[in-house]
């Protein structure tokens, strides 16, 4: 039996990629492209929309349609694409800065609108590309290049935010659980309505180095220890305060998506 490699979606001659050794972005890209292949995505029918940041550079490696946008606004550009042509597979790649820090408003409204997009958020808990500054998902107390005495703010739970805002599908994965991540992405891509996959990823260059998790392997060990499959997750045995978190499918709903609803509006307009 042959397995999907996803290689056919990669541009010739772009490897090795630009991401740091130990970064999870390459793993997430691999999982996504294998999911594309398993779902038989066609380049012509697929648009990958990226934001700005380490993960936002992913479109450079792809031969699908792509739109590389501004920081935090990828979901809004993607909304226009999908709203006008619902036949397209629109996949939005953002970091934690893009998705829930500068772009938080678009994130909650894309979920509320339930527009049929798949957002794949690589959360490395800081701004990797610009030198490891604090982001909206940096855990409280952690050290970054702009919180040198510890982060005074609390972190967002990206999945809980998407759930509360009305997303049809929410899953969390990590860059250290490639197979599970690939399956979550596949489920998200086939789900109608707004779907989110958060992939927690090591940033050994900044976050790990600043928070006693070096070398790179330490961050991977840390993720392996703290990530608990949602089926086995017990809040008492796995306290959040100690860094434990569940991964896997967290939300699965079937509310009508924006384009389906808009077709009803068009039908009403035609009758009036």
């Amino acid at each position: 039996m042959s397995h999907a490699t996803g290689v056919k979606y990669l541009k010739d001659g772009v490897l090795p990629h630009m991401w740091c050794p130990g970064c999870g972005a390459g793993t997430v890209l691999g999982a996504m492209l294998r999911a594309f292949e398993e779902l038989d995505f066609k380049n012509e029918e697929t648009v990958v929309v990226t934001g700005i940041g380490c993960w936002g550079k992913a479109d450079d490696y792809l031969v699908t349609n792509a739109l590389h946008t501004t920081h935090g606004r990828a979901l809004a550009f993607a909304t226009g694409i999908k709203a006008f042509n619902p036949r397209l597979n629109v996949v939005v790649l953002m970091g934690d800065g893009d998705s829930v820090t500068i772009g938080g408003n678009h994130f909650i409204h894309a979920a509320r609108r339930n527009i049929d997009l798949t957002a794949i958020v690589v959360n490395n808990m800081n701004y990797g590309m610009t030198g490891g500054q604090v982001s909206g998902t940096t855990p409280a107390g952690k050290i970054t290049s702009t919180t040198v005495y510890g982060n005074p703010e609390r972190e967002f739970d990206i999945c809980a935010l998407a759930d509360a805002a009305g997303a049809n599908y929410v899953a969390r994965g990590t860059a250290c659980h490639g197979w599970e991540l690939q399956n979550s992405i596949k489920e998200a891509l086939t789900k109608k309505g707004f779907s989110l996959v958060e992939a927690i990823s090591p940033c050994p260059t900044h976050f790990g180095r600043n928070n006693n998790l070096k070398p790179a392997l330490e961050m991977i060990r840390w993720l392996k220890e703290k990530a608990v499959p949602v089926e086995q997750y017990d809040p008492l045995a796995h306290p959040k305060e100690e860094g434990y978190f569940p991964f896997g499918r967290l939300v699965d709903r079937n509310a009508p998506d924006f384009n389906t609803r808009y077709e009803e509006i068009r039908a009403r307009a035609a009758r009036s």
Partner: protein
Amino acid sequence: MQREARLIQGNQAIAEGAIYAGARFYAGYPITPSSEIAEECSRIMPGVGGMYIQMEDEIASIAAVVGASLAGAKAFTATSGPGFSLMQENLGLAVMGEVPCVVINVQRSGPSTGLATKPAQSDVMQVRWGRHGDQSIIALSPSSVKECFTLTVQAFNLAERFRVPVILAADEIVAHMRESFTAPAPGELEVVDRKKPACPPGQYKPFEAGEDGVAPLAAYGSRYVFHVSSSMHGPDGYSNNSPANAAWRVAQLHRKIETHRDEIVMTRSYYTGDGCDVLLVAFGAVTRAARAAALEARKRGVKAGVLQLITLWPFPDLEVAVLGENARTVVVPEMNYAGQVAGEVRKALGPGKDIRRVNKFNGQIITPKDILEAVM
């Protein structure tokens, strides 16, 4: 669209003009004094197979417009000063990615929330220079309900033709003014669609400009697969940081406008046939006061004429120079403090010319009397 004469508002004419031009996607965020455009579009779009989507803010509105345009739509949004400011970064992407789109900016008084319901013409420079980085755009300005319609059609035509954002810099007066208007029949006004690629799909390069300096634009979902980027990119749309490529691309974004200046720059002159001693250079609603002032001045023995700037950017410097050269005095009435257009007129006519500014920035319209005081 009804073909009999109706008494309608400028904002309604803008919405109808967009539909006439083929716009089928509107994304926006309501703001006075532009909101009637959103309301009209929400009513019309679903019935013509189009889409109205109210976004969470103006940043998202222009982003959705750009996305829809790349999916093949003629797309637009409408806003006013505060919202227009929010759109600037993503408008820069439309410039860089060469994405056709139209932004209606119904100008109101500022700064900040200012006199939120009152007219102004103080965004002339924001329209031209609001985005960071080197870039070039096109801007038009209507002075009547009819021009709200026809210039919206023109705005789409120019956006499609040159793959560039076009700003319709209206003002609260023309937007809310009601005039008798008969919509043109289909085919009566030219409607331009973007040039599409004809090459085999594997050879398509979305930023490889043809002889006219404008590359064909495919649509997402067609058989052409393509990359568009806010980052500096080569002809294939992929990132390219070489200095030679960057220099070529930045220059090209300007050249495609500059070399087609004559297709873009529109002006109209009134009462200038016999040459004029006093030339009034006006745009938008103030054109109307300028025309009344010129007629009154002529009654009082001063040969006055009006040059209406229909295109604001690229600036009609040659047209100003030709008519202004023989005038003793040039008067520039505009609803802003700094004389944003007067400065451009000065550039066109040089330091020796008697140029008088009439500026009003209190939320009130410039009257013919205000202008006459500078003429007489």
